[in-house]
């Protein structure tokens, strides 16, 4: 047995080394608007310069301070994501999420980073002229970076479930939980969240926390979601259980939550992360306060440092993220036919008992490693990956 394999599983991957010691699965020049007002301009640069990825979003201004802080943190940490080789920050000049703060934050990673501000340069044409040239030079300088072999201590996966159905809790989520076990036992880091889905299963997760205080933070996040729902007259326990869930056979919120939590199996939880926060502690499984909604969710995961996202689905969710490949895994045999253009990994075999969860878990793990090594996901191939949003709490002014 070679040292790169353990129990038949590949325990190495090939990624792009970064100056801060992190390792990426992709090698993009990120175009990061500090405020949604400049999205059109950012889109022009993206189309002009190959190798760039626009991280367009609609936030960055007229927030309460806590949201401004969250938007800035998110943009900095997206720039720090190891899939980003270099970053160009594009500001308008009057926004709350100041471009220079984002620029300075990303600079800490040691990566090439630059900034253009529309008000200083005098409009779209001047900003594109300067910004596109900077971006082109960044691609020129970074596109030759070679992949190297690394251990799983450099590997970070995120996960979520979307457009779920009853097969999610019977197959794809359980299989993903097995991947979580394999990769964390070998030094990897795994980020899970979706506070809405945790609701009902928060105490089960708390029991898995290595530190009780961190576990209490998970419960607090659920309380916060409930209280914020009540503030607008909604019992989030009820709105979380959709009519479709009940028609599909889910009876209680706890049942739904346990099926969703299964994406991390029974792997011990190292800590709780705020939205878009990079884990600072030991490797292993983390719970991030990201929501279920796909755009804010994937953004939070990418900002947390995930280089590949394991996206379980039942009915077929097509969306990805600009800088982080999202693998779609599905256990619904019908969806695997009807949505075949969007599904990467078919685990209907688990429901039919052709394959055990352990076998499917190993297969999915090896597939995820191949995506980390460069294999494109369906969402990437289809360019179904531009959707992006940053979680805010509001109110919007």
């Amino acid at each position, binding site marked *: 047995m070679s040292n790169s394999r353990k129990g038949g599983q590949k325990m190495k991957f090939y990624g792009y080394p970064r100056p801060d010691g992190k390792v990426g699965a992709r090698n993009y020049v990120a175009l990061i608007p500090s405020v949604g007002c400049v999205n059109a301009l950012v889109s022009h640069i993206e189309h002009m310069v190959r190798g760039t990825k626009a991280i367009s979003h609609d936030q960055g201004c007229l927030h309460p301070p806590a949201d401004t802080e969250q938007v800035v943190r998110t943009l900095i940490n997206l720039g720090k994501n190891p899939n980003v080789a270099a970053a160009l920050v594009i500001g308008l000049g009057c926004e709350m999420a100041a471009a220079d703060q984002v620029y300075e934050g990303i600079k800490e990673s040691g990566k090439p980073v630059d900034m253009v501000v529309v008000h200083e340069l005098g409009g779209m044409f001047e900003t594109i002229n300067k910004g596109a040239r900077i971006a082109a030079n960044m691609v020129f300088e970074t596109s030759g970076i070679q992949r190297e072999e690394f251990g799983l201590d450099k590997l970070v996966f995120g996960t979520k479930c979307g457009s779920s*159905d*009853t*097969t999610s*809790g*019977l197959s794809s989520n*359980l299989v993903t939980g097995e991947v979580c076990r394999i990769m964390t036992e070998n030094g990897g880091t795994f980020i899970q969240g979706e506070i809405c889905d945790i*609701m*009902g299963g928060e105490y*089960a997760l708390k029991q898995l926390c290595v530190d009780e205080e961190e576990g*209490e933070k998970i419960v607090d996040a*659920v*309380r916060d979601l*409930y*209280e914020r729902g*009540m503030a607008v007259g909604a*019992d989030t*326990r009820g709105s979380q259980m959709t009519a479709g869930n*009940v028609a*599909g*056979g*889910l*009876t*209680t*919120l*706890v*049942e739904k939550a*346990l*099926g969703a939590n*299964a994406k991390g199996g029974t792997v011990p939880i190292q800590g709780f992360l705020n939205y878009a926060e990079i884990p600072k502690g030991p490797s292993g499984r983390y719970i991030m306060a990201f929501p279920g909604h796909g755009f804010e969710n994937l953004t939070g995961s990418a900002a947390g440092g995930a280089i590949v996202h394991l996206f379980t689905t039942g009915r077929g969710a097509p969306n990805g993220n600009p800088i982080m490949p999202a693998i779609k895994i599905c256990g619904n045999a019908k969806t695997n036919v009807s949505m075949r253009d969007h599904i990467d990994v078919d685990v209907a075999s688990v*429901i*039919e*008992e052709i394959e*055990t969860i352990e076998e499917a878990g190993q297969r999915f793990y090896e597939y995820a490693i191949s995506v980390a090594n460069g294999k494109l996901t369906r969402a990437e191939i289809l360019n179904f990956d531009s959707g992006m949003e940053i979680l805010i709490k509001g109110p919007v002014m």
Partner: protein
Amino acid sequence: MTKYAKLIDEKDNVATAVADCVTGDELTVKSKGKETLCKCNHDIPFGHKIAIVDIKKGDKIMKYGEAIGSASQDIRKGDWVHTHNVKDDYKVLDKDGNPLPGQED
């Protein structure tokens, strides 16, 4: 054609049908290689749950090895188990274990 239901954890007292089932169907309940039979007392759609043992009113409904609710009436082996015979006991609790306001039974 054989119709199956999946038992996820050995502590569970319900299994999930992975075929549309009608009253009288004999389901094969699969759990990690082990198989048992259970006859449907009701129509049970794909993804819905069937009781694999008798469950008394007030007893916990177990799935994933955890309590997902409690029986709101006596449930017989083979019965369809859903919102009509299961009570959702979940409440968001404060630090002292008391329900936060707004969660009436």
